[in-house]
């Protein structure tokens, strides 16, 4: 069965076509508040479909496909950087006429979300970080090994071989098959640029510039990031809130999506602007 969200398109200031979907079942007579929700590396915004029912009754939920992912075009040689990815978020908000918005991301998508909140503090109402360090430099990810594995085997075989490490907590074979199918749509050469770009990033020193309410939802048992690595926000963003998912590995946004969405909804309702 197909998922239903209708994809919209816009053109970024450097000419790239960006795809995004909008899901909104909030009461039309109330002031509308928008959440921009950014997917992780590999796949697309479709990976977040299970989040929509919980959130969209209260917020207008906008899910962009990051450069090179899903329905968004693959960027040219000079068209991929973290700065450019944050500009895409702001240009999407401009395109939708949003002066201010809530922002959340998963893993690499959260690296984009946090950097956007640092660089455009006047635009971001609240920030929610799911399972990410501030850039992948402080994480345990061996990006060179991932990239060489994906290049040697192709995405599908690489994912097939590593799927149990990603989802030791998931029994649903249908989900695992779907996750591989969706993620394997990612362009190998794009990932070979995207992954190492994120691995070079560490903006820990800039975290103190995050002034908006911030929620960190963190996997409690993640080989890709230790509890200490994920606790960095406690020090640099002292007002930020934490929720730990004890015992769970990295991909919490895929393996327990409804729990993530409900925790995000509680945080957003608490910090509604209107």
């Amino acid at each position, binding site marked *: *069965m*197909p*998922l*239903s969200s209708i994809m919209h398109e816009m053109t970024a200031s450097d000419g790239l076509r960006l795809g995004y979907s909008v899901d909104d*079942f909030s*009461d*039309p*007579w*109330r002031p509308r508040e928008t959440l921009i929700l950014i997917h992780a590396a590999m796949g697309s915004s479709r990976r977040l*479909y*299970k989040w*929509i*029912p*919980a959130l*969209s*009754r209260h917020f207008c939920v906008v899910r962009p496909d990051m450069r090179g992912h899903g329905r968004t075009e693959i960027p040219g040689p000079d068209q991929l950087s973290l700065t450019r990815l944050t500009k895409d978020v702001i240009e999407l908000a401009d395109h939708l006429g949003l002066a201010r918005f809530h922002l959340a991301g998963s893993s690499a998508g959260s690296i984009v979300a946090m950097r956007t909140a640092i660089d455009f503090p006047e635009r971001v109402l609240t920030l929610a970080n799911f399972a990410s360090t501030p850039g992948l430099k402080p994480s345990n990810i061996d990006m060179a090994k991932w990239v060489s594995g994906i290049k040697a085997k192709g995405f599908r075989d690489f994912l097939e071989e590593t799927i149990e490490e990603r989802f030791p907590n998931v029994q649903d074979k*249908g*989900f695992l*098959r*779907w996750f591989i199918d969706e993620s394997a749509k990612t362009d190998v050469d794009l990932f070979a640029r995207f992954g190492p770009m994120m691995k070079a990033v560490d903006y820990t020193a800039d975290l103190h510039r995050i002034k908006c309410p911030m929620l960190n939802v963190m996997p409690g048992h993640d080989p890709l990031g230790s509890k200490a690595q994920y606790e960095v926000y406690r020090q640099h963003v002292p007002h930020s809130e934490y929720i730990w998912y004890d015992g769970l590995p990295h991909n919490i946004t895929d393996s327990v999506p409804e729990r993530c969405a409900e925790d995000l909804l509680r945080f957003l309702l608490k910090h509604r602007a209107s």
Partner: protein
Amino acid sequence: MNTFKASDGLEIAYALDDYADPWRPADTVILVHAAMGSSLRFYAWVPHLARDFRVARIDMRGHGATQHPGPGQLSVPRLAQDVVELADHLGARRFHVAGSSAGSTVAAKVAIDYPGRVLSLGAFACTGGIRHSLQDQNSWVKKIGEKGLAAFLRETIADRVDLKSAQPGFVDWFIGESGKTSVAVLEQFVPMMRQFEFVADLPRIRCPTLAVAPGGDPIHTVEQYRVLPERIPSCELVVYDGLPHNITDAVPDRCARDYHAFLLKLRDS
């Protein structure tokens, strides 16, 4: 909105919302809105239902983005046929159907005429026809013709919505949405509904049925709503005490939660 062409050539609009797991089969639910307005009136129901079901909301003939019917193109059987043709268009051999008020008449007619297609019926604010209701709907048409639809709705809003509990802004929105309806369409639609009775056909509804009735409705008595559980072989009735007619607009989350629980119980039994 999506569209398809009905077998008599009219273009019918519908919304489709689906957040069900793509790797499992999910049943289709078709929602039929009340007279006036459009499928938009069900927006609040969607998040409650669409994680487990594929939810299609039809705009009835003459309503919303669906074309207006020409002479001879509007009848209750034709409206029911539109629902079945939408199911065909979606590739749903069997489906759940639910409706609100006049839309529940259409939904019940689908269950009566196409028993092999319908998995269950959700009948919100549904009697076996409105001929014996406490108000003469044909007099509504006269007033609408004189004053305009929005003014008529504003004068009679307390029949539809509990103003003490209604959220600020809701009433204006409801009147704005419903007020978009063509008066020429209502002049055909309301008398057609007024003379359509199906109490005698209720025993032919073989599928499990959930009836949800307003308990404080100035338009129908609770006894009129009780004909459904009395005559439909497998029907449970839930009464929302104290509420006037338009429960599906005024307490949409409550309706959708009750309907979702009914659907899940069927799916998992």
